[in-house]
C-alpha cells in the first residue's frame, strides 16, 4: 500500500505540492488529476524520490521509499525516457538490471510482453527506428517488466490509438489482479472513469477533491430524474420535494427537478403505478462536469 501523508514540495517560493495526502491500496487503481501545472508530475517525482519533499511522509507497505525499495516500483514518465540508440533488447536489459533483475528473467518477460503487444519482431530493432506508439509500448514494458508492487504511470495512454489503449488497460488490470498498487494521470477523463477506483483532483498543488469514484459521483449527483412514461404531471408535482416537471419535446419524456436525493424513492414509487414506463434515470454527472465544478475549467481542454 502506498501512503502519502501531508506532503509538500516547493521550488523556491513556488509551492508545487501543498499538504497532499492519499492512499493507494494493494490492487487498487488510483488517478491523480489536475490541469497542467497542478502538481501531478511533481507528486510522482516526489513519490519516486527524484525530488526531495519539504515535509510529509511517503511509505510503501509501511517503509519509506528509498533505494532499498525502488526495485519494486515501476515508473513511466510522461515524456519518452528511452535511450534511443539502444535496441529494444538492450533497453529492457538496461532498465531491468537497474531494477535488480537477472538478464535471463528480463528476456523471458520481455518476450512475453512483446508477444502480448504484438511487437515481437522489434526485439533487436533500435528504439529510434520505432514509431511513437511502439516506443510507448516499449516504455510501458520496461516500466512493468519487474512486476512492480507500485506502478506509477504519468500519461500512459498518450500517443496511443484506441486498440492499443485497450491493450494497456488490459495489462494494467492484470497487474491490479496481482496486487499491484497503480497510480496514474491522464488527460482523458473517460480513461479515468473506465477503470479507476479512487482519485485525487489537484489544483495549484492542493487536493480539492478526493475519494472513490462512486462516492464522488453520488456526492455530486445532479438533482434531475429523466422519465419516459405515461404520467400525470400534476400528481408528480404534488410529491413533496419535487421542484418542477418539464415535458421534453419528445412525447412522454419528462425532466423532474428534485430538492435532494431522498425524493427519488417517492418519485419512483409513483412511477411504478404509471403505464408505459420505458425509462427512469437519476442523472449522474460526468467526472469532467464534477471537475469543472471544482476547478472551474474543463479537464480535457
Amino acid at each position: 500500500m502506498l501512503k502519502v501523508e501531508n506532503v509538500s514540495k516547493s521550488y523556491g517560493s513556488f509551492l508545487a505540492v501543498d499538504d497532499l495526502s492519499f492512499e493507494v491500496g494493494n490492487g487498487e487503481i488510483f488517478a491523480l488529476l489536475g490541469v497542467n501545472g497542478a502538481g501531478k508530475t511533481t507528486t510522482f517525482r516526489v513519490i519516486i524520490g527524484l525530488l526531495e519533499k519539504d515535509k510529509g511522509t511517503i511509505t510503501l507497505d509501511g517503509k519509506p521509499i528509498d533505494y532499498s525499495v525502488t526495485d519494486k516500483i515501476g515508473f513511466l514518465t510522461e515524456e519518452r525516457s528511452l535511450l534511443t540508440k539502444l535496441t529494444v533488447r538492450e533497453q529492457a536489459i538496461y532498465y531491468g538490471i537497474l531494477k535488480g533483475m537477472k538478464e535471463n528473467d528480463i528476456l523471458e518477460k520481455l518476450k512475453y510482453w512483446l508477444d502480448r503487444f504484438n511487437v515481437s519482431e522489434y526485439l533487436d530493432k533500435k528504439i529510434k527506428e520505432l514509431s511513437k506508439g511502439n516506443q510507448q509500448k516499449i516504455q510501458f514494458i520496461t516500466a512493468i517488466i519487474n512486476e512492480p508492487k507500485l506502478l506509477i504511470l504519468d500519461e500512459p495512454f498518450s500517443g496511443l490509438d484506441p486498440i492499443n489503449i485497450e491493450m494497456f488497460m488490459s495489462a494494467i488490470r492484470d497487474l491490479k489482479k496481482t496486487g499491484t498498487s497503480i497510480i496514474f494521470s491522464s488527460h482523458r477523463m473517460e480513461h479515468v472513469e473506465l477503470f479507476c477506483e479512487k482519485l485525487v483532483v489537484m489544483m495549484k498543488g492542493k487536493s480539492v477533491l478526493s475519494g472513490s469514484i462512486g462516492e464522488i459521483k453520488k456526492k455530486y449527483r445532479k438533482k434531475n430524474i429523466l422519465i419516459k412514461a405515461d404520467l400525470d404531471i400534476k400528481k408528480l408535482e404534488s410529491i413533496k420535494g419535487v421542484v418542477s416537471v418539464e415535458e421534453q419535446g419528445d412525447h412522454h419524456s419528462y425532466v423532474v427537478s428534485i430538492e435532494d436525493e431522498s425524493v427519488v424513492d417517492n418519485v419512483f414509487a409513483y412511477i411504478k403505478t404509471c403505464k408505459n414506463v420505458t425509462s427512469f434515470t437519476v442523472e449522474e454527472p460526468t467526472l469532467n462536469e464534477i471537475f469543472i465544478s471544482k476547478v472551474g475549467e474543463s479537464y480535457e481542454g
Partner: protein
Amino acid sequence: MKDKLKFLIKQSLKKKIDTKWFKIANVIILLALLTLMNIDKIIGFFGGDFNNETQIIVVDNVDQYDLFYSYFEAITDGIEDYDKYKVEKTNESLTALKESLEANDNKIIVVLNPSNEEYLTTEVITYDPLGTTNNQMIFSVLSSLKTTVALQESNLTEKELATLTSPVEMKTLVTNPDLAEESGSKDTVASLLIVILIIPFFFLITMLTQMIGADINEEKSTRGMEIIISNVSPQIHFLSKVISATLFVVIQGLLLIVYAVIGVILSNVSLGTATESTNVLGGIVQSLKDFGMLDLLVQGGLVILVMFLFTLLAYSILAGVLASMTTSIEDYQQLQTPLMIILMIGYYVALMASVFEGALFIKVLAYIPMLSFLIAPVIYLLGQFSLLHLIGSTLVTVICTILMYRYGLRIYKVGILNYSSKKLWKKMFRSLKER
C-alpha cells in the same frame, strides 16, 4: 548497489568501445600514427625530384678543383643525402655546357675564374633557380676557396696555411657531475618529452570530456535519466560515468602505446638492419640517459602516474558536472571551451619550460591542478623541479580531485534532473550548500 554500479560502468564502457566507430577510429589512429612515424620513408618510397642526383660541373680556370672538391666534401659531410651530389671537373666549353642545360636536369655549373683584385671570381649557372640549400652550400664552399686562394698568395708556409684553413676545434665540457657530456640540445629533449608525455594526454583528455558530455546529455535529453535515477542514486550514476570515462581513456592510452611500438618496429624494419632497429628507441633512451632524465623517471615515475590518473579523474568529474548542468550537447560544447583553453595554456607553458629555465611563474603553475600534469613532469625531468616538489604538486591534484568530487556531486544531483537553463548558475551555487 555495487552490482548496479558495475553494470553501469560496463554499460557505459561498452557503449564507447563496443561500437564500429570506435574500431574505425582506432584503425584510422593506427594508420595516422604509423604514417606520422614513417612519413620520411613514405615520401621517399613514392619518389620525386629529391631522389635525382645533383651534378656539379666545375669549370676550373684557376687550377683549384682539388681544393674545391675537398671543401665540398667537408661541408656535405653532415648532410644525410650527400651521396646524391656528384662533383666533376670539365674541359668542355662554357657555351656548350650552357646549351646542355635543360629543365629538371639538376645540373649546376660552377665557373672558377682568376682575378687580380678579388683573387677569385665565380659564376654559378643553372637552368632552374638554385634551391636555398644548394645556394648556401656552394656559397660556403666558394667563400672558403676564395680565402684559401688569397692566403696562398700571401707567402705563408704550408704549415701556417694548413693551420689557418683548418676548422676551429670546439670542446664542450659540463661540470655537473650527475650529467654526462651533453650529446644534444636540451630543447630537443624537452620537445621529445612533450611529444611523448603531453600531446597524447592532451588528446586523451579532449576525448574524455567529449565522451562524458555526450553520454550524460544523451540520457538527460531522452529523460532516460529519470528512470535511471529512480533506480540508482545520483552518486552511483556519477561514479559510473567518471570511472567508465577514465577507464576508457586508459584503454585508449594503452592502445596508443601499442600503436607507437608498432610504428617504431615498422620504422626500424624499413631501415633494414637489426643494428639500426635498436637505434630509434636506443637514441631516445640514450638522450634521456645523457641528461639524467632516465634516473629521474625511475624515481618519479610512480608519482607522475598517480598525477596523471588523478588528473584524468579530475577532468572526468569536471566534465560530468558541466554535462549535468547543461540541457543539450551544444550547450555543453560551449562550456567545454574553457577546459580546452586551460589545456592549451598548460601545453604552451610546458613548451616554454626549457627556454625559461627555473622560472618561478612556471613552477607556481606546476602546482595548479589540471594544469600541473602538463608542466610538472616536464620541468621535473628537465631538472627544474625536485621530486619533493613533484610529490607536493601531485598531492595538491589528489586533494583537489577529492574536493571536486565532493562538491561536484552536489551540483550533479541537482543538475541531472534540471531541464531549464533559467537561473542555472544560481541553482548550482545553491546546490553547493546542500548536503
